[in-house]
């Protein structure tokens, strides 16, 4: 996956992500694609979540999946979640949960949904995502409606391992997260940080909007054979667009 939060020169924020899924789950040698990714592309839906008869927030989901990977609460915050792989990973949380040792721990995508359902501001959401015990590590990428409201929360099961703020970003006007801790090198066989950063730097801040960031996320290898869709969000305007993605032909498998 790749998540990006960028702000233009006037401080307007755009939050976007590519969802990549299906690695090592078979390979269809006839059409040169991952079969799980192929199936997932047919199951993508957008959801308006209604409460008290009004729109509470928006998300996209795979049909039949009740948790949330990406969501937008108008005038409050936007959220995406990228996989974080740790030795003490999700299986450890599941085992602890099964034995009742982590009874209060939240499943990742349910914590994201709970945050969108119950938190009204960027700061409330940030506090909740940083401190609620959970059952698996993850990167929460959180954006707001105002200038500099953007952060990456690298979560371990019981707390926040690393918090990276937009205001401290080494890139100045954007944050980019794939599946590695900020400030560490990505695995050389799976380095989507370098091409993503190079392409964002070519984009420049004055073009930081839906069009520009979609083009970055449509560039190899941030776009690869695992990519199922790109979602583009603006908290300020409540625009939420999901666009189907694939990478046919000679494209890197992940």
């Amino acid at each position, binding site marked *: 996956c790749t998540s990006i939060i960028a702000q233009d020169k006037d401080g307007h924020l755009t939050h976007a992500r590519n969802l990549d899924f299906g690695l090592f789950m078979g390979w269809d040698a006839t059409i040169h694609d991952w079969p799980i990714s192929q199936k997932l592309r047919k199951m993508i*839906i*957008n959801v308006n979540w*209604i409460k008290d008869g009004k729109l509470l927030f928006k998300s996209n989901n795979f049909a039949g999946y009740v948790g949330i990977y990406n969501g937008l609460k108008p005038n409050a915050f936007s959220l995406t979640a990228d*996989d974080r792989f740790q030795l003490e990973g999700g*299986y450890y949380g599941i085992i602890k949960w099964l034995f009742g040792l982590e009874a209060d721990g939240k*499943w990742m995508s349910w914590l994201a949904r709970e945050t969108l359902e119950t938190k009204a501001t960027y700061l409330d959401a940030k506090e909740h995502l940083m401190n609620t015990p959970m059952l698996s590590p993850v990167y929460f990428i959180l954006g707001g409606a105002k200038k500099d409201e953007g952060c990456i929360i690298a979560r371990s099961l019981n707390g926040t391992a690393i918090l990276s703020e937009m205001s401290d970003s080494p890139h100045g006007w954007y944050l980019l997260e794939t599946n590695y801790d900020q400030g560490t090198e990505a695995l050389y066989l799976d380095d989507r940080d370098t091409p993503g950063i*190079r392409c964002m730097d070519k984009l420049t801040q004055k073009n930081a909007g839906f069009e520009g960031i979609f083009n970055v996320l449509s560039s*190899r290898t941030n776009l690869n054979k695992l990519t199922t869709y790109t979602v583009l969000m603006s908290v300020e305007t409540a625009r939420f667009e999901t666009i189907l993605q694939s990478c046919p032909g000679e494209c890197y498998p992940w």
Partner: protein
Amino acid sequence: HVELPAPYKDHCILDDKQNLYDPSKQFDIPWFDVNLDLPPSERWKQVGAAYKTQIADLIGVLIDLITPIFPEAVKFADDVFGEMAPKLAQPYRDEIYSISEVTGIPLGQITMYNIFYEIFTV
């Protein structure tokens, strides 16, 4: 960073002065309402009914992948994840039960699908 060999090399399409963004493509993805004012068992009925074939196909691919290595995969998913389901927190539990009911897919398999992120991080 190690550059990939051609034709897999990283490539920023901005170098080609291309614009791939077509906002009309967002309408390829359908919108549904999930009404939190309804009981959890009612919220996903429309989505479940519309996508039962696709959900079954996806879980079928997972099972086909695992079965050659682990022939008891279907039974394992039905039994182990089926037994986990009653312990899940509300309102997710009732929502998952209703999706299983409306799609006709065993509860254990729908539960496995819904906690797949945690399994995948292994």
